[in-house]
């Protein structure tokens, strides 16, 4: 009886343990006996951190695992769209993942710098055709911290080479550049000091400008009020000017008509006037002579003109 009890107890413990082990193995590695629902293929240049059974996430949500990893042969790489791709992954998608459309892009991602890497599926156009089972999707290799460090390392190596290898030319050039930079800085300092005085002057100008602006503002205000006050009189003045202009125009028309009508008369009048003017000139000359003779001999008024001799001047 005791032996039977031992057997049952031990068997129970072992069976429980086996069940727990299988459950844990399934939880960690997935069900190896169940074929994946759908698969997608993608090629990468670098899958550092990715291994078989690594997670596949669609838009951040768990969507499957990496089913297999295969390195591409040289001929496959040459035939590939991107010959830089070196490995092909088969991504097994869970059955609850909906149909995925073309335009999907795979990339290697991680939640944080320390976290495990996974394959991230992103994008896709819902109106595009649905991806077929085993379809090849494009991939992008993200810029990782390692890439940046590698690039930085090569950059530093280049600088190191310049500094070490260019001891003859490089250092002297750097020195010259530094001298030029020093001179430029000195000039810049002088400019800055000059600029500071200019700034001070500018400040005064700005102050005066402000005052002027204030005054101009006042003037504009006055002007506005003046305009407001004189608007109506000006309007009436302009209306009067307009009517005056019309009257003048009318008068000019009338004068023109008058001139046209009396042109012949005017001509005769003008000829007569010319004659009268010529007569007047003769009369004026005679009067001048009379005045001159009276000036010379005022007694003529009483005694009459008599004979008189013309002066040389008068003769000329």
């Amino acid at each position: 009886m005791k032996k039977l009890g031992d057997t049952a107890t031990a068997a129970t413990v072992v069976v429980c343990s086996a069940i727990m082990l299988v459950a844990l193995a399934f939880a960690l590695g997935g069900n190896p006996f169940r074929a994946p629902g759908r698969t997608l293929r993608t090629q990468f240049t670098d899958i550092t951190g990715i291994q078989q059974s690594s997670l596949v996430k669609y838009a951040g949500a768990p969507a499957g695992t990496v089913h297999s990893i295969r390195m591409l042969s040289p001929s496959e790489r040459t035939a590939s769209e991107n010959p830089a791709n070196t490995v092909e992954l088969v991504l097994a998608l869970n059955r609850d993942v909906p149909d995925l459309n073309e335009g999907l892009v795979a990339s290697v991602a991680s939640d944080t710098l320390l976290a495990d890497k996974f394959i991230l599926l992103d994008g896709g156009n819902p109106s595009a055709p649905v991806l077929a089972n085993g379809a090849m999707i494009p991939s992008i290799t993200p810029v990782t911290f390692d890439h940046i460090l590698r690039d930085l390392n090569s950059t530093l190596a280049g600088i190191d080479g310049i500094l070490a290898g260019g001891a003859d030319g490089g250092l002297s050039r750097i020195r010259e550049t530094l001298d030029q930079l020093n001179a430029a800085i000195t000039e810049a300092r002088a400019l800055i000091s000059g600029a500071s005085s200019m700034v001070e002057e500018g400040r005064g100008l700005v102050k005066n400008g402000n005052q002027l602006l204030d005054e101009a503002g006042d003037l504009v205000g006055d002007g506005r009020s003046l305009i407001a006050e004189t608007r109506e009189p000006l309007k009436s003045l302009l209306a009067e000017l307009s009517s005056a202009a019309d009257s003048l125009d009318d008068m000019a028309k009338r004068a023109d008509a008058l001139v046209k009508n009396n042109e012949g008369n005017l001509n005769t009048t003008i000829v007569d006037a010319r004659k009268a003017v010529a007569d007047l000139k003769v009369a004026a000359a005679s009067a001048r002579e009379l005045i001159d003779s009276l000036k010379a001999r005022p007694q003529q008024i009483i005694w009459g003109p008599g004979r008189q001799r013309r002066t040389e001047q008068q003769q000329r």
Partner: protein
Amino acid sequence: MRDYFALNASILYWTFLAPFRGKALRIAATFHQMVRIGVQAVPMTALTSLSIGVTLAMQGAHELSRMGATAFVPDLVGMSLLRELGPLLVGVVVIGRSGSAITAEIGTMKVSEEIEALEVMAINPVRFLVVPRFLAMMVMLPTLTVFGNYIGLAGGWAICRFSLGMNTDAYIRRVVESAHVMDLYSGMIKSIVFAWLIATISCLYGLTVRGGAEGVGRSTTNSVVVCILSMLVANALLTAFFFVVES
């Protein structure tokens, strides 16, 4: 060392060859030893694993909180237990509890000339005494390791749930996502190797006891020391092996 290899060869013979030559395994004795070595060690193993899981989670939380990375505590607990601490600590517990008992039991039989009596009765002492213990150890240590892993993870969960405020679902998901099935398998392979070492070394020291009761005590002490040291060395070698294989 020669005795050790001879004992291993004898165990292999009586386990894998002799049953096909009409000399069956002692199944009942094996189950009896399984209960003694494994079932009765479950509480001790559970307590040890629980305390280790709790300690790992607390230490991890303390250090990772400096970087604001307490979300990685489940990763730490899961990886540590499945890969290293689970099989190692269960092995230490079994060495202290069952390995020493095997040495003392067989050593006592040796000094009381019961082994010679068995040989006189044409009963092979390896078949009669060692093989059941060996088989029981080979089955029960991995079994205890599986239990220990679960209970250690439960300890880590307790800290994450009640101290860090992480919900149960998130804890399980992090453990499952961070650990790989290879971590579990490597731990199980280690526990199988440890079981082999513990069973064979304990039995060897029991069968080679000399000098009465004092000799039994000395052999038991030496057995425990050698078992622990050989287990640690084997652990390092296996870790290096898996490291090379996985990379």
